[in-house]
């Protein structure tokens, strides 16, 4: 039985046995690269679930809204998604008893842009993972073609450290091994090495692209406030004018709000339509916090306290000491 079939069977069983009154999973779309979220209350709908190398969306944030009208929601989660679950648990935004987590091991997801660049997009019907390869189903005579998966993975998946779910109630399929192929901190160090002026110019250029679409915020499991300060008018924390200073302000405040809470999933950067390297900012903060307060990975253990979310008399008073 492949993963799609397992997902369908599991979802149908959960809804039939009334173990949960909602199942949130990924469906198939019109195009090969689509995987819209599915919200199932009825076992019959389970047949629409589909596993593909494009199930990149973290479904955890839907819980915020759905749990208001459902007793218990079952959710399919990848390794990175579970850090988002832990984020929401730690932020007291969901109750563990109200969710049923179906873990899905993930060896890395496909990047449509890379497929496009290699000339595979047009006429591509389906992409399937098989071992270290992607099997591309193409229109016309050729039918299928096997390509090495590593060449077409999302950049963030090449930096993945948790391919298997960290927290789950049930696990579908076998755990996968996928060591980090890239050091996620390498870019931070590179940017850091630039002289101050150059670094400032670098970020001016990057942040000037921002169109304030808030995709980075909307996709982020750490951005889970009931009312975001960027949506408030009184007080007006950040202006709405289309100018660099407001764009910088927005991006800096966004990264400060997730400081010590960022689960390093890379979704903000992936979702950004303007290719702003947001993870370079987030990871710079992770690096700084590690230097100040010791090694800390957010979203690993929901019972621990983030370094900036606690008060200790002996905390380093770095600012005043310098």
């Amino acid at each position, binding site marked *: 039985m492949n993963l799609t079939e397992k997902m369908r069977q599991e979802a149908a069983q959960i809804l039939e046995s009334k173990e949960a009154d909602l199942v949130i999973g990924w469906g198939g779309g019109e195009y090969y690269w689509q995987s819209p979220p599915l919200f199932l209350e009825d076992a019959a709908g389970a047949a629409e679930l589909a596993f593909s190398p494009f199930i990149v969306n973290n479904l955890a944030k839907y819980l915020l809204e759905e749990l208001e009208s459902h007793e218990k929601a079952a959710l399919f989660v990848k390794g990175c998604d579970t850090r988002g679950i832990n984020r929401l648990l730690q932020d007291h*935004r969901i109750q563990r008893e109200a969710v049923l987590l179906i873990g899905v091991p993930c060896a890395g997801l496909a990047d449509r842009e890379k497929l496009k660049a290699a000339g595979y997009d047009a006429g591509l019907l389906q992409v399937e993972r098989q071992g270290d390869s992607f099997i591309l189903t193409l229109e016309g005579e050729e039918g299928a073609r096997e390509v090495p998966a590593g060449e077409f993975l999302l950049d963030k998946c090449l930096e993945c450290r948790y391919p298997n779910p960290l927290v789950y109630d049930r696990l579908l399929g076998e755990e996968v091994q996928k060591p980090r192929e890239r050091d996620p901190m390498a870019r931070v160090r590179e940017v850091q090495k630039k002289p101050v002026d150059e670094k400032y110019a670098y970020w001016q250029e990057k942040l000037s692209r921002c169109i304030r679409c808030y995709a980075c915020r909307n996709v982020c499991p750490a951005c889970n406030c*009931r009312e975001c300060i960027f949506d*408030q008018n009184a*007080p007006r924390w950040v202006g709405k004018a289309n100018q660099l200073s407001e764009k910088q302000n927005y991006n800096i405040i966004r990264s400060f709000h997730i400081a010590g809470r960022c689960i390093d999933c890379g979704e903000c950067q992936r979702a950004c339509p303007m290719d702003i390297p947001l993870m370079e900012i987030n990871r710079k903060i992770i690096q700084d916090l590690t230097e100040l307060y010791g090694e800390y990975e957010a979203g690993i253990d929901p019972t621990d306290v983030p370094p900036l*979310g606690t*008060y200790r008399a002996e905390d380093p008073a770095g600012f005043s000491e310098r």
Partner: protein
Amino acid sequence: MKRVGVFVCWCGSNIAATVDIERVIAAARKMPNVVYASDNKYMCSELGQASIRESIEKENITRVVIASCSPRMHENTFRKTVAAAGLNPFYLEIANIREHCSWVHKEGEVGTVKAISLVRTAVAKAARNEPLTPSSLQITKRALVIGAGIAGIQAALDIADSGYQVDLVEKEPSIGGRMAQLDKTFPTLDCSACILTPKMVDVAQHDNITLHTYSVVEKVDGYVGNFTATIRKKSRGIDMEKCTGCGICYEKCPVKVDSEFEAGMAKRRAIYVPFPQAVPNKPVIDRENCRYFTQGKCKVCQKLCPAGAVDYELEDEVLTVEYGAIVVATGFDILDLQAYGEYGYGKHPDVLTSLEFERLVNASGPTGGKILRPSDGKPPRTVAFIQCVGSRDQAKGKAYCSKVCCMYTAKHAILLREKVPGAKPIVFYIDVRTPGKDYEEFYNRATDEYGATYIRGQVGKVYPEGDRLIIRGVDSLSARPVELEVDMVVLAVAVTARADAAGVGRMLGITTNAHQFFNEAHPKLRPVETHSAGIYLAGMCQGPKDIPEAVAQASAAAVKVVGLLNKDSLVGNPTVANVDESMCSGCLECTQVCPYDAIKEKSITERRGRETLTRTVAEVNEGLCQGCGACSVACRPGANNLKGFTNEQILAEVDAVCL
């Protein structure tokens, strides 16, 4: 529209010599909402204040900015001035153009530009100042003292003598604490028991003191004037009403265990009174060692008790009591010597801690006051005293000085010479520290009159040879190695905070330092207060100190308690945080960062469409909140807001500085 009046003070030449007052006034007149600006040589003088009051009335001013010295200096003065003119005192805003401008900038130009900027900032904030009214808090006229050593006893007596009810809670079966274990006290050599026991009796007989021995404070809720404590009175297994304290029960008890009071130098029974002068002088059953509780059989004490007071079925009693103030006097422990194997403690019976030596010298101690070697019962001829065992040792022990060891070691040297004629005390020291009245003289007596030998240097190793002990060390003054043969070694072990101090601190919402001693609110000017209003410190739990210091601090804490309980009501601080529930996500990060434990979670229900939802939000206890603003910073959506320093006000200030 708000009508802001700006009053610029010269502070004689303090401000006016550097800052161009005329320019500041001219600039202020052009600022938004400003309807009036003037100056005065001394704004805080009666004339200056009168000019403010008159201008407020004449110009119909509704918000006041005073550009002067630090608000720490005169904010209260000027709040009263503003209130006297009929405005809410929190309509006042101060721009500090003295400490922030004239005192730190030599150049007039820079100072003036900055002064204008600070006035603009204050004007922007003042225009958004809302009226604030302090709440009035009731005070429960009863005090809780935790720990009944000398500090707790003194504090309880002083509060009780002032006419207030005090509950004194002690976890041991008797009050008295560490001081009860000591023999003589420096620098006068009067006997510890002789001066302590009368105070213990006073406590027991005082009408205003309720004693809870063998009891622990399990929980403290509330805030200044209104604490609620849960006290567990552990079952003694003795009906205290019936017991006459005759002592037959513990004479016949078949179980013998190490006596805590005798620092393990003697045995006690499983039913016992810790020491003859104990208060209350009634026994307690140690359930962990009692044969009836461990094996289900025995009951000897019950059979023998003529009063029928032994009752194994008695259960713990849990009390919930309300208090207005709390004194923490939980005392100290001594350092565990595991890391100091080189001194041979625990391996050789004649290597003692100073507390054990104290019992050995004591007339009611295990040897009846004769200094005898635990190994063979013979009097020692040479005794080495090693100081700073664990103190002033950043590598293995505690970085701090334990403060009492130099003095009690001099005392031990004197007592040794008095009790064992011809005996030789040798003291190894790093520095001899004797600040205190008659302390240096006392040390001089030890060396000059009693012939104690002081060797400056540290000991590297203590090991047995035959029936004696060999000490190897270095005399750092002559830089020569020292090797001595002695009969007994006494280690001046570092004092430490209680092992559970951090937990007690969390329970009370008070902080500890890196060594788990409780933090005072200010190291010089508020040495008995904590950062939590209504909670005070006395004795060693705050840091190493000797008996006179502990007593002085206890009396000081008592005065603070009495001063608080004397008030009819407390004026609350109106600049406290509050939570906008509609915005609060219930992440409760504010509860974690609050140093005062002032924020708790709360459930609210609200309608959403057809559904009624229950969700969690944060709630600030205004009595506990000290207005530090940590929650307001931690709150991402800005649901937590500090009254008097709201997000709107601070953003307006930032805008005014930047624009």
